[in-house]
């Protein structure tokens, strides 16, 4: 089970500023194990979706080129304080994670 995602969502004027820190190794699949010389298998988040009050606002595709413990910041116009943000991710092995936060 992956460590929980951290979400910080605040209103900045009339825009909801959302910052997400995901916990994932983001292994590219091109690195070699220094001891065995074998390729370390790829293991990275491939898809991230975000929604506000049930409405999808972001749908992203990622590669192993995103840094370990992916960070994502985005902004949404329309929501207000108290609305709920939900973020989901899926990785190339089919593992998933979800978290939610209330816009402050």
């Amino acid at each position, binding site marked *: 089970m992956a460590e929980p995602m951290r979400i910080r969502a605040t209103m900045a004027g009339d825009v909801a500023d959302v910052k997400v820190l995901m916990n994932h190794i983001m292994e590219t699949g091109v690195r070699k194990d220094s001891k065995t010389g074998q390729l370390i298998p790829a293991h990275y988040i491939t898809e991230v979706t975000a929604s506000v009050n049930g409405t999808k606002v972001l749908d992203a595709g990622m590669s192993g080129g995103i*840094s370990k413990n992916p960070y994502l910041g985005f902004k949404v116009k*329309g929501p207000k304080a108290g609305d709920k943000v939900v973020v989901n991710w*899926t990785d190339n092995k089919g593992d998933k994670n979800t978290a939610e936060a209330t816009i402050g």
Partner: protein
Amino acid sequence: MNALRRNVLKSAAGAGTVAVAVAAGLLKPTMALAGAPRTAFEAKSVGDALKGMGASAAADSKDITIKAPDIAENGAVVPVEVTSSIAGTTAIAIIAEKNATPLVADFDLMNGAQGFISTRIKMGQTSLIRAVVTAGGKTFTAAKEVKVTIGGCGG
């Protein structure tokens, strides 16, 4: 841009065994998508990545701002921020031109999401960081060079 993740089955790479397996009910579509090849992400050149995104004709735009370092402190974690002030921005993609697979990530934005993405990427070497923005059905692009050095005595 939507072709990237959706319906790999529709792409040339996906048609064939995977499509047949789904049709036969052996593979559910969601299972096929997880780990299935995503053409543009697999591309090994900028040209092929842009082609896979349908963005080969992306026009240079001054309305795309890329905030990224001049010299990366550490190539494993380079903060990149893309802001698009082009009206009707529906997607932002980030390409690291000299990475083995240049397309790093793409973000579809909808229902009030602004033309803004902030993330951290890996860079293998000094290269242009290219942003490709989709707005009003057209594609636009801008780039900024980020240098990557090998540190000396950082320990």
